[in-house]
């Protein structure tokens, strides 16, 4: 019976090749998109999976509640671990780990330099690995390898990279920075890509210079503590002891902002937007849900095509149904037969979807810069997903048509007297409206994302980042002596226009903030961002002063420049009033020398902060070089050369400020690309469905068209008649889609402090696009129907 069904299914599909093609094409593209989305989501959800104690492993984080805002850090004060070990009874193990950038040098057997590189290193206590005890040790063990100063543990990959092989690495030495010698004392497994712990080089905590810091008021987000709760304990059980701990170490009168520590469970780290992680790869759950919804949309759109075309076609099969029923077929058998057909179609679509997915994987990997594992056969759950997808589609798309078709009354069906009843017609209309509403929401979304990204790229930031290179400089005392020579030498290059020593560009996520005292009064409402830069900074970035003047050239903080926002937040209306007032911040007491016009100091997601700029030679990490835009490449090469001869032990690194700023919008840019792709896919699916439907309607109405022609209808009138209902449906879809699109779009834009206004035009454009494509799609087919020769239809009855 099943075999027979398959055979009949095949013949029917073949007979209606056109509709079958539309169905399979739409389904396979929809499925391919869904599979890609699934692969992506599965990868994201698999972060940090598989630790056997995962619900006992927590990261300790720090929160602040100021009167005007809240702040969050993934770090803890340095003395936290030692204190917590003794005082919080619920912790079984507490391990600290700090992420730092370091300069490493590996010498060969003769002591000659073999390799030097700038790497992320982690200073970790053995207990960190006792918390994350599933990280495999290929050689040695945490207590043996990390208890002493001057030892290092490498991942297998890095052991190979530095020393050729794991075996050769053991016991070897490498140099950290200028002086410290590290001995390779252990080898750990390579961390998978879906880990928040990309540990490659782990140095014993005892080597970490900052380990004796005893300040509870200073938290760095790269200094983290991981804890293992005692067996059987839930975080609620520790609430009291952590509250006591907070009260003891963060007394309100001494430490600002109601500082407190909290627990964050291991599997939440990857999805947290408040707290950083070492892998810099967090994604928030709403993005994952958003993608899942888009995937669902795609599948629903493809299924709607299927449902519409099959119910529409069903009339032509009414005779078959009638005959089968007269022969004694039960309704359930007919349903089974039609579901078989759908199943065959979905299976065929899946095969094509796999091919499309394979083809789409390389560009996807490129889009995500290779940080995400995309592989069709990467995980058994992908197969399970595909199987589910086929069943889901076969059922969703097949069940309703099967129900309709199998319900035909045999007597009528045999006489071919089944007309599409009004109810079926209106269900189809509703589905088309739903389909196009989805399409239009996506079109509007895409237009808004594109527009916002353009806005972000074009908005004047209040400074000029063009043709400015940030060149990293070493910060050790030996190097500091050479700063001036370095500056003199590159100043002489013909392409160099201006040079400034500074910490970071004016817009950076990497600027410290601190509390401050203004005019003798300690401020409690907001924090002040502190930029360290020499006096040339203003010229390099074209920053404008609106009051006062610049500070004089100085190696230490002698005066500062604040921005307009600082004045606004302090309710100072006249800038002159602030000049000469004294600010105490980050250990410096300086008078305000000038006020700089506001510029965006963070990505456009954030408002401009209050900030102060002052000199401080000890804290410069970069040289910003303004280059003649026509000589950039040549000049950079020269700078590189001079840099290497000035700082022979360092590693040259540089970045253009423009590019760095753009990188802050990477996730939005990726989203923009994804939106464009999925909107394209959904438009394609919807419109081939529409084409199928109008083809069917045109065939169905051939007789009517012929009669009307004889009654005197012109071709144009007939085309209008056939098109009419489709245009109305798409119009209604627009009306349905607009409020939904508005909600989505304004929610997304709310994430930007600087954003475009939601205007009518993306909506109007989406309507114009959808109506125009509808008109073209439908007219092609209806013109054919309307201009066909009438007589053959009317002749033989």
């Amino acid at each position, binding site marked *: 019976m099943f075999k027979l069904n398959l055979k009949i299914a095949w013949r029917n599909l073949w007979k209606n090749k056109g509709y079958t093609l539309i169905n399979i094409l739409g389904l396979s593209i929809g499925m391919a998109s869904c599979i890609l989305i699934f692969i992506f989501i599965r990868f994201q959800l698999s972060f940090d999976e598989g630790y056997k104690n995962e619900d006992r492993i927590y990261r300790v984080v720090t929160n602040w509640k100021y009167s005007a805002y809240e702040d969050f850090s993934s770090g803890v004060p340095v003395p936290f671990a030692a204190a917590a070990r003794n005082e919080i009874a619920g912790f079984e193990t507490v391990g600290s780990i700090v992420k730092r950038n370091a300069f490493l040098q590996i010498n060969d057997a003769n002591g000659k330099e073999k390799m030097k590189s700038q790497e992320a290193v982690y200073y970790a206590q053995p207990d960190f690995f006792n918390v994350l005890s599933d990280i495999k040790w290929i050689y040695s063990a945490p207590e043996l390898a990390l208890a002493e100063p001057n030892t290092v543990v490498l991942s297998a990959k890095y052991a190979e990279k530095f020393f050729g092989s794991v075996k050769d690495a053991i016991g070897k030495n490498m140099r950290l920075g200028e002086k410290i010698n590290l001995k390779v004392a252990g080898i750990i497994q390579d961390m998978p890509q879906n880990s928040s712990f990309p540990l490659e080089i782990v140095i014993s905590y005892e080597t970490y210079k900052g380990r004796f810091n005893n300040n509870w008021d200073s938290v760095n987000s790269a200094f983290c503590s991981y804890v293992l709760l005692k067996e059987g304990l839930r975080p609620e059980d520790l609430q009291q002891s952590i509250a006591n701990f907070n009260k003891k170490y963060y007394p309100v009168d001494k430490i600002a902002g109601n500082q407190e520590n909290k627990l964050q469970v291991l599997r939440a780290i990857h999805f947290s937007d408040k707290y950083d992680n070492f892998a810099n790869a967090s994604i928030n759950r709403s993005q994952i849900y958003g993608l899942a919804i888009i995937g669902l949309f795609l599948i629903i759109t493809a299924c709607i095509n299927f449902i519409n075309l099959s119910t529409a076609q069903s009339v032509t099969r009414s005779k078959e149904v009638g005959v089968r029923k007269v022969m004694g077929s039960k309704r359930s058998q007919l349903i089974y037969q039609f579901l078989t057909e759908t199943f065959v179609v979905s299976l065929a679509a899946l095969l094509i979807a796999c091919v499309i997915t394979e083809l789409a994987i390389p560009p996807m990997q490129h889009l995500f810069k290779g940080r995400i594992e995309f592989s069709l056969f990467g995980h058994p759950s992908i197969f399970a997903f595909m199987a589910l997808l086929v069943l889901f589609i076969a059922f969703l798309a097949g069940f309703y048509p099967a129900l309709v078709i199998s319900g035909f009354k045999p007597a009528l069906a045999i006489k071919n007297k089944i*007309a599409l009843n009004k109810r079926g017609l209106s269900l189809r209309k509703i589905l088309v409206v739903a389909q196009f509403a989805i399409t239009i929401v996506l079109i509007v979304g895409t237009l808004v994302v594109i527009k916002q990204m353009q806005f972000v790229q074009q908005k004047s930031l209040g400074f000029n980042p063009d043709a400015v290179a940030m060149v990293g400089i070493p910060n050790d005392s030996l190097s500091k002596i050479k700063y001036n020579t370095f500056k003199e030498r590159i100043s002489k290059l013909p392409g160099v226009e201006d040079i400034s020593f500074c910490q970071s560009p004016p817009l950076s996520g990497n600027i410290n903030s601190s509390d401050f005292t203004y005019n003798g009064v300690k401020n409690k409402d907001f924090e002040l961002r502190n930029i360290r830069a020499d006096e040339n900074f203003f010229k390099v970035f074209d920053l404008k002063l609106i009051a006062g003047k610049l500070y004089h050239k100085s190696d230490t903080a002698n005066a500062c420049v604040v921005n307009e926002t600082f004045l606004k937040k302090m309710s100072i209306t006249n800038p002159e009033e602030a000049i000469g007032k004294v600010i105490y911040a980050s250990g410096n007491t300086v008078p305000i020398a000038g006020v700089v016009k506001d510029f965006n100091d963070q990505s456009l997601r954030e408002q401009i902060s209050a900030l102060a700029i002052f000199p401080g030679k000890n804290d410069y990490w970069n040289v910003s070089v303004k280059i003649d835009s026509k000589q950039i490449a040549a000049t950079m090469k020269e700078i590189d050369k001079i840099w290497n001869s000035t700082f022979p032990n360092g590693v040259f690194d540089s970045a253009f400020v423009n590019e760095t700023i753009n990188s802050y919008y990477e996730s939005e840019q990726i989203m923009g690309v994804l939106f464009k792709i999925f909107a394209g896919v959904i438009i394609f699916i919807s419109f081939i469905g529409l084409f199928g439907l109008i083809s069917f309607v045109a065939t169905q109405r051939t*007789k*009517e068209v*012929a009669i*009307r022609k004889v*009654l*005197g209808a012109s071709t144009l009138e007939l085309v209008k008649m056939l098109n009419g209902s489709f245009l109305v449906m798409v119009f209604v879809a627009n009306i349905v889609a607009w409020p939904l699109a508005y909600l989505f779009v304004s929610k997304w834009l709310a994430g930007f402090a600087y954003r475009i206004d939601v205007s009518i035009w993306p909506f109007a454009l989406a309507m114009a696009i959808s109506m125009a494509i509808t008109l073209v799609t439908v007219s092609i087919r209806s013109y054919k129907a309307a201009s066909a020769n009438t007589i053959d239809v*009317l002749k033989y009855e």
Partner: protein
Amino acid sequence: MIQLTNIEKYYASKGVKNYVLRLVTTTINQGEFVSVMGPSGAGKSTLLNIIGMLEEPTYGNYHFMGEDVTSLNERKRIELYRNHIGFVFQAYHLIDEMTVYENIEAPLLYKKVGSAERASRIADLLDRFNIVAKKDLFPNQLSGGQQQLVGIARALAAQPSIILADEPTGNLQSAQAEEIMSLFKKLNEEEGITIIQVTHSEKNAQYGNRILHIADGLIKEDIKIQA
């Protein structure tokens, strides 16, 4: 009104010409009621279709109301359909999705007749054909005879000068057929509408005033019937 000169029609299949009509020449005047008769396959429908401009002759000349229509453009032809020609089909060919009322209204809409005029004409027709009660029913809710009445009402709505009817009673019982025939006769005599019908029944043919006998694509006999 209708002047056919040496009309020929053939279908070529595999290089062989199958003649359906040969050298048909005849004139039909305003006010005539012509019955076309002949065996099945003789070419009756083809002749009627050519007269109705649904098909083009292979050779020959056709003048409709003094105008050469052998190769008429689409716009002109539509003009003629709207104003001069009404079709009645054996299979009725009503539009299934439209009610009786809407079916009758359709040609008036194409003719751009104003709504008041439309309503009164339709009311008039419904009344005349005794189908007022049926005006909101759909075609499949009517008997064959009733459907054909609607078909005729529709053909008349645009007030044509000629009605072309291909076996209008072919699917009907004799009682219903008689009703339709006397209706045709009345239309012809009282309103002067030219009627050309194809029929197999000698009895039906007697309602008219002229019979064209066709066999093998030729007019074999052309008989005038004296009232």
